[in-house]
């Protein structure tokens, strides 16, 4: 099974994690159950009367499992952890509570500051004017680079202003034979190329940076054009500077290659920073070696892609008070800081990002994250938001994979994808 968007660090604490927070309404113990991946440590929590049980679910099964659970007469889960594009689907079947509605507002702490959230991550939990979920793990697609490999190649450190042309110019020099055996053993880039739903996010970030978009204002696919094809060519061109077998690489393989110092750049989810640069148990690199910034600049702007994990409350829960007390704490400034320092989850609050970071390494990371929120907001860099978004994403995965593998030209692959997505979204 693939666990693509979860951090390796998180797996250690996922199996069955218990935390304690206060039942907002009374002091009796309440037990709530949460589908998937929030990780907090019970010693760090001030509220002892809510027992939270976390179930780890593989990413690819998570949405189907949550929908199946939510539609059952007696759902198992009180809190649902939701990936960025899933809110419309869950909202569509009435699975989530309106967090700004009167029922929840009545039990919301006075100090809970909605306005402090950055707009981009908060928007991930909103659908048709209703706030169904709050950001608990604000991931962004970012560029990691290895300073040592740039230095050894005699190249200056890249900046957020670097263009794709400059990136490829550097890439020529970054592919090297370091031990003199006649074979290259260090490469310029690794990222998602494999046939899976997150691979199109790389192409899409290039598309958005080039001024293109997935859908037009009327919701019709708008990517089967010159900009779309050029962006897919750029994605495919990266394979020329990637390690052997990169066409089969995704989250885990690219992460492994980067952590082992085999590739100079990696486009991956920002929340892997801790396990990539900080934790010696999982990486050969150090904080000083690993730079982080937005993806290279296209025709219009830099690239990024929003991948916010948001949490909502099941509309059929018997433990509304306990569930909301837990989520309020987890998304408070205090909860965000603990979650960030323990497992490297990124915060969504402006005050957390601009405040004193809990760990020194978080400083530059927060700066990049704030920049990425702005870049993503400008370029509308997120997946299709629709009750059929997963169907559309799977179609993109199939066609982008064909394009990358050379089994279809970029024009053909994107043309087929556009027609199919238009039908799927109807």
């Amino acid at each position, binding site marked *: 099974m693939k666990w693509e968007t979860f951090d390796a660090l998180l797996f250690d604490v996922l199996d069955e994690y218990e935390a304690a927070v206060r039942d907002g309404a009374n002091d009796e113990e309440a037990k709530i159950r949460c589908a998937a991946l929030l990780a907090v440590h019970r010693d760090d929590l001030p509220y002892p009367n809510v027992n939270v049980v976390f179930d780890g679910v593989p990413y690819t099964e998570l949405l189907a499992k949550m929908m199946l659970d939510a539609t059952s007469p007696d759902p198992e889960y009180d809190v649902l952890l939701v990936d960025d594009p899933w809110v419309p689907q869950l909202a569509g079947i009435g699975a989530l509570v309106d967090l700004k509605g009167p029922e929840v507002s009545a039990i919301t702490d006075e100090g809970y500051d909605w306005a402090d959230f950055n707009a981009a991550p908060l928007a991930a939990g909103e659908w048709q004017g209703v706030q169904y979920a709050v950001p608990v793990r604000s991931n962004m697609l970012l560029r990691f680079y290895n300073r040592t490999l740039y230095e050894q190649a005699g190249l200056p450190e890249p900046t957020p202003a670097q263009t794709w042309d400059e990136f490829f110019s550097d890439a020529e020099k970054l592919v090297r034979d370091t031990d003199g055996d006649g074979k290259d053993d260090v490469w310029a880039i690794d990222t998602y190329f*494999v046939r899976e739903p997150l691979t199109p996010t790389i192409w899409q970030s290039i598309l958005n940076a080039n001024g293109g978009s997935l859908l037009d204002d009327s919701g019709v696919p708008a990517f089967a054009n010159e900009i779309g094809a050029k962006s897919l060519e750029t994605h495919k061109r990266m394979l020329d500077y990637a*390690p052997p*077998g990169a*066409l*089969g690489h995704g989250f885990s393989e690219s992460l492994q290659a980067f952590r082992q110092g085999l590739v100079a750049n990696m486009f991956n989810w920002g929340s892997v920073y801790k396990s990539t640069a900080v934790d010696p148990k999982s990486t050969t690199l150090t904080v000083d070696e690993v730079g982080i910034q937005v993806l290279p600049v296209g025709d219009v702007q830099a690239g990024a892609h929003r991948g916010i994990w948001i949490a909502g409350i099941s509309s059929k829960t018997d433990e509304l008070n306990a569930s909301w007390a837990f989520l309020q704490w987890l998304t408070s400034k205090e909860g965000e800081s603990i979650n960030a320092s323990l497992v490297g989850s990124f915060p969504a609050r402006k005050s957390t990002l601009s405040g004193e970071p809990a760990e020194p390494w978080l400083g530059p990371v927060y700066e990049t994250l704030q920049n990425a929120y702005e870049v993503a907001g400008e370029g509308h860099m997120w997946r299709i938001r629709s009750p059929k978004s997963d169907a559309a994403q799977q179609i993109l995965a*199939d066609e982008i*994979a064909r394009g990358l*593998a050379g089994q279809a030209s970029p024009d053909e692959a994107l043309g087929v994808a556009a027609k199919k997505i238009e039908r799927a979204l109807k």
Partner: protein
Amino acid sequence: MEPGKPSGNGSVRVARERQLGDLLVRWSFMAPAIVLLLVLLAYPIFYTIDISFSRFDIATFGAGAWVGWDNYREVMSDYRFWESLKVTMIYLAFALPIQVVVGFGIAYLINAEWAGRGIIRALFIIPMVVAPVVAGGMWRMILDPLWGLMNYWLGFIGIGPLDWFGDPNLAMAAVIIIDTWRWTPFIVLIATAAMLALPKDVFEAARIDGCNWWSTLWSVAVPLLVPVIAATFVIRWLGAVKMFDIVLAATYGGPGKATNVVNLFIYEEAFRSLRFAESAAMAVIVLILTMVLTGLFLRASRKLEELF
């Protein structure tokens, strides 16, 4: 009427009672199996058929409005479905003959009496008991062009490096290699049992007649084994046609669509795209195709049995 003998009517009644009793006993033995089959097999099949003719209602997770053949038309017009069927057929066309030939070949070679034969047979079972997802993941590591052992070993004989998961043909070869590694031992076990059951006097006669190793194999052993080979092929076909987990773990259906077998495609459409109705229609089509082909193979198998 002779005393002690039942009348004509009486004997008919007794015979009927016996017949009825016999029938009841037979059905009582079959009843648990029938109930299990209805619950575990018939219900899911009818549920799938029901969904395939409906709009899937995600709120109730069941069949909604009746849409007739719409889902089937949608599926039939999707090139990805046909491509996945083609990929499945390519995989089956290579994997099945290779496994049957290699399986019977190994069985023939290890059929001679030698010390430790039992241990080797027991070891053969190991790949079969490894979970397919584990096998797929393990072989993904072995074949990985960057970190894998296979390219390292092949390098010693001047081959490669091979891009097992980047080249469409090699990716299909990788799936066939993994599946063959898993299932050839099963065929070896069947073949070994079949060979042990062959009449020894025929081989003795062949030896006296001066047959060499090859003519004994080709003119004696193979004709005697043809019914078993045919039956093994059908059993393996029924297993292989379900191919899904190894591909999911090893190649994710890629590169591009090169190893996207039909079951993986159905799974992805259902559980990733949440297009359950269209997936149900595909599942029904695949079920029918499998039944037809299985029927043909069984018929051919019987013909071969008659011939040999």
